[in-house]
């Protein structure tokens, strides 16, 4: 995963876009040249990183399960009620 390197925005002022935001947008959205130009189209190799996580995969599930396990420590430290009700 690529992480956007940017500072948290103060208030709701527009924040600078990180590379992950750029990738989401310019590789996925916008007009597609192939829809307009056919004869003079030039194919060019695009090599780029994909910052997106495939959500709803087994990897996601395992990460979530692990995160929930880690949550115990956090909750005990915070003195919260045991949410499992045991």
């Amino acid at each position, binding site marked *: *995963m690529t992480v956007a390197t940017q500072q*948290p*925005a103060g*208030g*709701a*002022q*527009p*924040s600078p*876009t990180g*590379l992950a*935001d*750029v*990738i*989401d*947008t*310019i*590789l*996925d959205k*916008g*007009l*597609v*040249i192939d*829809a*307009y*130009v*056919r*004869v*003079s*189209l*030039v*194919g*060019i*190799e*695009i*090599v*780029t990183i994909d*910052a*997106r*996580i495939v*959500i*709803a995969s*087994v990897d*996601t*599930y*395992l*990460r*979530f*399960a*692990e*995160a*929930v*396990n880690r*949550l*115990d420590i*956090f909750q005990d430290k915070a003195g*919260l009620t045991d*949410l*499992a*009700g*045991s």
Partner: protein
Amino acid sequence: MPVAERSEGSAGAHRGCYVYGVVPHDVEPVPGATGVGDPAGQVQVVRHGEIAALVSEINVTRPLGRPEDLRAHQQLLDGAAAAVPVLPFRFGAVVTNAQAVAEELLAPQHEEFVAALEQLHGRAEYVIKGRYIEQTVLGEILAESPQAARLRESLRQIGNPDASRTQCIQLGELINQAVSAKRVADTRTLGEVLAGHVVASRVREPTHEMDAAYVAVLAELAHQEELENAVSRLTPDWQGRITVRLLGPMAPYDFALTRALEN
């Protein structure tokens, strides 16, 4: 796969014309503005009638996609969008030369592009991204889902996560479903807060498992402050559980409503 245009057999055989976007004909690039590629070409304007394309020369035999290339594309278009209407192309649009841009891109689509630019006059895209604060939202889910809480408890008693992969997956799937349901609800809340402050909005597909909301909006540039204030109104409810960012103004990638997106 690189497909260089070699038919000319000249020094220009490996050169192409990279297209950033379409703008009104009277737009001038910032002097010295450079584009994508290594070395980066000077940004130029190809005009036809009432419209123009922002382009730069590029070596088509080299792959494209360094962070600098992505940023050059984005910065040129977003910079333009803050001042003039712009129809942004997706990254990587290359045609043979400037003549082809005028004759094959601008001329046949002249009316269509003029109409689309008129729709965008004084407007730009903004993106609102909400990301869950993991610990908070997982705590919410355990409190709301007895099934998830029970599964977690039984996993804790087993102690060895390797021995209980199936249950881990089961728990993770439950959490994922719960996060998805929260995402739908929080995206709806965001939509309600934005209503009346935007011309149009599009919900984007989540790109991260902790995405709380991911929405692109088209808004009046002159009303940016209203939009900022509207997003700020989420703070009481979202504080501590969702971090929200407002990006823009940027080129209307999600709202360049022409044939290409209708297909």
